[in-house]
């Protein structure tokens, strides 16, 4: 009674012969054709059903009837003015080297900088702020550096701003063009003439650009909010305006805030939106109505958006300690404002406490000289200090805390089992807790 009989498997000798039969088939499948075994393995091993690369084609090259050689030959470039002869590898077809200019010579473009004569300078181009020498130097640099004014400004001998250089260059070029032209009409189309360089606008534009670029993410968000709000208001006002009374007094002077944000003299503020088109049909309504408690809730959430859940709970606990209602019982405008401010101040308080805690932990680890293993010990001493901190809150008594309330709270705080803390006794709460040192743990 063989185990194999029971299982119904074929007896061993039979299975071996079967294996032998299957193996040669597999071998022929596996054997690569044309490339070595290792390389074949790189492509993924055994061939897929539909080979992506025809393996037999890999080593063959397309037959070519041309005779190609590569030769080390000299060449010149029309882009160079000095007839320097350099060498490079050249693909020679049937003994004929390629003709034509150096292939990269066509990229050697430069700007047509207009050069004035001395006479022209005397006649048109004198300027109180620029000497002839400076102007000459400017034009030399412009030609040399293809009007890359940043580089020109760097290399200019006397300190000049980019805008000043640009201004001088463009105004000189413009004057020369106009002076040389047979009639003004002919050059009117020239870009230099059509669009003169406006220095003040450029300076303003760059200043505004740098202001925008240097905005913090916070400011960016605020700006986006304001603009979205403005858009919304503008749209709703447009809608409301159609039905409004014509004698609504609206001043069209622009406040100081907008002057600060002015992008440039190019922008004009159209007063047409402010005008009233038609007399009133139906009286307009208040656009928004809300409950003050709802608004306060929103503002509280916004103020604590950066704080974690634990911090929020601590704020609420502090409010309770101070005997302040978490939600004001009489939410008038003044009360809501005070409430919000109080919450913000408490957040500041908690942050400062944390800050102090970290600094003290840092300090104690410095003092113990355990600077090397700071991460572990600092964490533990911080956690200990955390316990300490919560008791500090009790000791600096917020108003009148009746005795039994105090006891209840301490029992709550003992909850997260830190039996090792020596200062977690009720008696200890009323002493000034000593700083936990790394050596204590």
């Amino acid at each position, binding site marked *: 009674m063989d185990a194999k009989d029971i299982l119904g498997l074929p007896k061993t000798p039979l299975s071996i012969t079967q294996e032998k039969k299957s193996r040669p088939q597999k071998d022929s499948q596996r054997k690569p054709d044309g490339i070595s075994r290792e390389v074949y393995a790189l492509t993924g091993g055994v061939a897929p059903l539909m080979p992506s690369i025809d393996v037999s084609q890999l080593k063959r090259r397309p037959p070519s009837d041309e005779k190609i050689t590569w030769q080390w030959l000299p060449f010149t470039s029309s882009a160079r003015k000095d007839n320097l002869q350099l060498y490079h590898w050249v693909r020679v077809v049937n003994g004929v080297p390629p003709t034509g200019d150096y292939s990269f010579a066509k990229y050697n473009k430069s700007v047509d900088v207009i050069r004035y004569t001395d006479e022209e300078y005397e006649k048109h181009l004198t300027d109180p702020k620029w000497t002839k020498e400076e102007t000459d130097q400017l034009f030399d640099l412009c030609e040399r550096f293809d009007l890359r004014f940043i580089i020109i400004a760097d290399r200019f001998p006397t300190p000049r701003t980019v805008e000043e250089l640009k201004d001088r260059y463009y105004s000189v070029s413009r004057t020369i063009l106009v002076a040389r032209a047979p009639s003004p009409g002919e050059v009117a189309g020239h870009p230099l003439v059509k669009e003169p360089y406006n220095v003040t606008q450029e300076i303003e534009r760059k200043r505004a650009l740098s202001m925008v670029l240097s905005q913090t993410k916070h400011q960016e968000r605020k700006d986006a909010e304001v603009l979205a709000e403005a858009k919304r208001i503008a749209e709703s006002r447009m809608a409301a305006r159609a039905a409004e009374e014509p004698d609504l007094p609206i001043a069209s002077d622009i406040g100081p805030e907008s002057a600060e944000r002015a992008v440039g003299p190019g922008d004009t503020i159209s007063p047409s939106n402010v005008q009233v088109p038609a007399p009133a049909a139906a009286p307009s309504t*208040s656009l928004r109505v809300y409950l003050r408690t709802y608004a306060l809730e929103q503002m509280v959430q916004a103020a604590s958006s950066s704080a974690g859940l634990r911090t929020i709970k601590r704020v609420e606990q502090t409010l309770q300690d101070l*005997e302040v*209602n978490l939600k004001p019982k009489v939410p008038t405008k003044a009360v809501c404002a005070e409430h919000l401010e109080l919450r913000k101040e408490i957040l500041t308080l908690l942050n400062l406490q944390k800050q102090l805690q970290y600094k003290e932990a840092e300090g104690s680890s410095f003092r113990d000289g355990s600077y090397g293993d700071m991460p572990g010990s600092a964490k533990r001493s911080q956690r200990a200090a955390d316990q300490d901190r919560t008791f500090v809150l009790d000791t600096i008594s917020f108003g009148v805390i009746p005795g039994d309330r105090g006891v209840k709270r301490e029992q709550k705080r003992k909850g997260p089992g830190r039996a090792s803390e020596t200062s977690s006794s009720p008696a200890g709460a009323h002493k000034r807790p000593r700083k936990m040192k790394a050596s204590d743990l």
Partner: protein
Amino acid sequence: MFFFCMIIVQKKMKDVEISVPIVYGNAAFWLGKKASEYQSHKWTVYVRGATNEDLSVVVKRAVFQLHSSFNNPTRIVESAPFELTESGWGEFEIAITLFFHNYVCEKPLNLYHHLKLYPEDESGPMSTKKPVVVESYDEVVFTEPSESFLARVQNHPAVTFPRLPAGFTLPPPVPQDESKRKRGDTKDHPLSQWFLNFSEADELLQLAAARQQVQTHIAKLRRQISLTDGQNQPFKSL
């Protein structure tokens, strides 16, 4: 950027808001001997002016949405005083929707009040004479009020009128025919003796005291921090 300028232009009107202080809640009387299993209490849910003034200058109608077990659970009250009296045994949330006059605001406002019938102190005897009263104070704020709204409510005692921007003049108010209108204020309301008093003074005092304490503590912490910084400084230069 030019949108920004438009806001500046409209700033004068934008900062003006009208707020209407209201109190909403319920008073519930135990029916005592007359109580049955399903009608153990007689209760009134209401919205009134915080100083018991007539709200109908602003509120056109109030809709009270009751529990679905009531017949016609949507009760509409078209005039002041905006209240509803019913009898029942259960406590549930009532949704109160305030609809305002055309010149006030087109959007309605929702309030939610949890009906309270049973007293907090469960051990004490229930009285048929003294009701269980729960009230909430809130303020309905209207932003960017229209001129007509402003004109209508100026000098009305139910409304906290804002300070208008300089040079702003209102058209004279439309004279109201007082004789025709029913009295909508709740000053002599049968339940008025049970109404709660809401005074912001106490709360303001409490808040001011609390802020003072927090500020003192903050100053203390700041001193401690700079002290600790001083102690840590020699180590930091290592």
